[in-house]
């Protein structure tokens, strides 16, 4: 069954896949971070907050706007960039060297990282492999845009 992006259904579908791959995520270790995903569309943004705890995505919700003080960081980008990333993951089974989160976000040219506290910002890197593997689970979904 397909899911559309952006939507809470998309993240819920990744959450379900994460549960199926519990052993893999346990092996990667604790992931304790709450971060935002902002997807720009026609000058507006759809915003999601993802709460990870222990080895799981505990909760995902869509919000009107994201208060940077309430999250560790926000991954923000226009819809075509997210789409390109998700399609790339689908095509390769995982993000290729040009489409992983850090590459897209490093200089803020394609995705931007917004944060209030550098300590929260650094959590993106503390849990980088879990976050990347989480998005790579898109390869198992049929995503429409």
């Amino acid at each position: 069954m397909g899911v559309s992006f952006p939507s809470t259904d998309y993240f819920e579908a990744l959450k379900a896949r994460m549960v199926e791959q519990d052993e893999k995520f346990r092996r990667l270790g604790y992931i304790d971070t709450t971060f935002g995903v902002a997807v720009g569309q026609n000058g507006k943004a759809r915003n999601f907050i993802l709460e990870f705890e222990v080895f799981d995505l505990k909760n995902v919700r869509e919000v009107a706007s994201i208060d940077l003080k309430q999250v560790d960081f926000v991954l923000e980008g226009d819809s075509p960039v997210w789409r390109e990333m998700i399609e790339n993951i689908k095509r390769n089974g995982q993000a290729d060297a040009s489409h992983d989160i850090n590459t897209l976000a490093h200089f803020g040219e394609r995705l931007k990282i917004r944060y209030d506290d550098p300590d929260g910002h650094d959590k993106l890197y503390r849990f980088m492999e879990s976050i990347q593997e989480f998005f790579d689970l898109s390869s198992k979904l049929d995503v429409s845009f």
Partner: protein
Amino acid sequence: MAYLATNNYFEDKDFVDKWLYTMRTGELDLSWMNAATEKVKPKEANPRRGLTYRDIDLGSYGYTDMPEKVRRNRSYAPRGAEIPEGVPDAQPWVSRKSELWAFNTESYYEEAVSRQWNATTDIPWDRLEGVELPENIGKSLSQLMTFLTEVEMIATDTPAMWLPRLNPDFIEVRSFIASQAMDEARHAEVFRKRALTTGWGLMQASPMNEMALKHLRDADSFSEMSVALHLVAEGNVLTLFRFSEYLSPTDVDKRIFRLVMQDEARHVGYGMQHFKYVLEHFPEKREVLHAHLDEAENISFAGAAATELTEAFIILAGGGMKQENIEEGIKITTKFNLKQMQEHFERLDKCGMPERRERSKLYKMYEMGVAAAQAAGINLN
């Protein structure tokens, strides 16, 4: 022998007789059963997370109620145990909590244990089969890896040498330091392994950077070591890892840098939280730490002359050695250099040292660098 026990147990008749008597008769002394210690009953706050140090942060066993100055214990007795007369002095150098504590120390340690990875098996080395990088990219990558192998073992030695100097009551910090030593050993390993799989082997040492490593080792106090290592050096290296991931030529290299950055970010997190803690709880240290930052930033700036690293970055970032590659590589490397400094000052701001910008010569260099980059049309976002 540098220490002799107060008794030679071969000659200690009372001790031996008591032991033999117990074994022969089964008459147990059992005085330890009445140890004057607290009874507690911890619970797993979250069974999926398991039993954590936070779950056993209770009463006299916990870290929350530890005094600022540890006067009660200088031995190897675990915190909260009954300490009889006659235990030896472990000779700790640091017995003041604010000199080493960080907010959330225990969770940094638990995270480290939980997120250990293996450079031998978690990197898809098989994907390097048949990969032949162009000479200039291969050599540049090897040069970068050579530099990183130099850096990483000092990041092991420096915290490790402090560990036995910390009062044994500081269990969670000692544990975090042990996990950091292992993290850094794994980093030295993975960078060496990658250099030796490029076809070029290791390249040239970096004398300027080695001087910086010497500086890290020779701090007067744990706090000074931590600010120079965890906050300045590892903060810079974290940005460098992200940059290296960004310009990695293969997905194998990408994975290496993603994994090492996880560890590095944890160390920086500890460094930030310790820096906050010491500034809040030991305000007299502020000037000492400023003075140490003067030196650390001076050495940080000297890294600009380590051209063996900068040049390798330019080639990797530009994708080669043609003029257009070099020009592109310079633009990207400039952004990296400035980002490294920007993030350094952001961290200091957030930790409670915003006045650092006024005092710092490095900050002035940063401002000049930003102005020059903007004049050259480099987009700094």
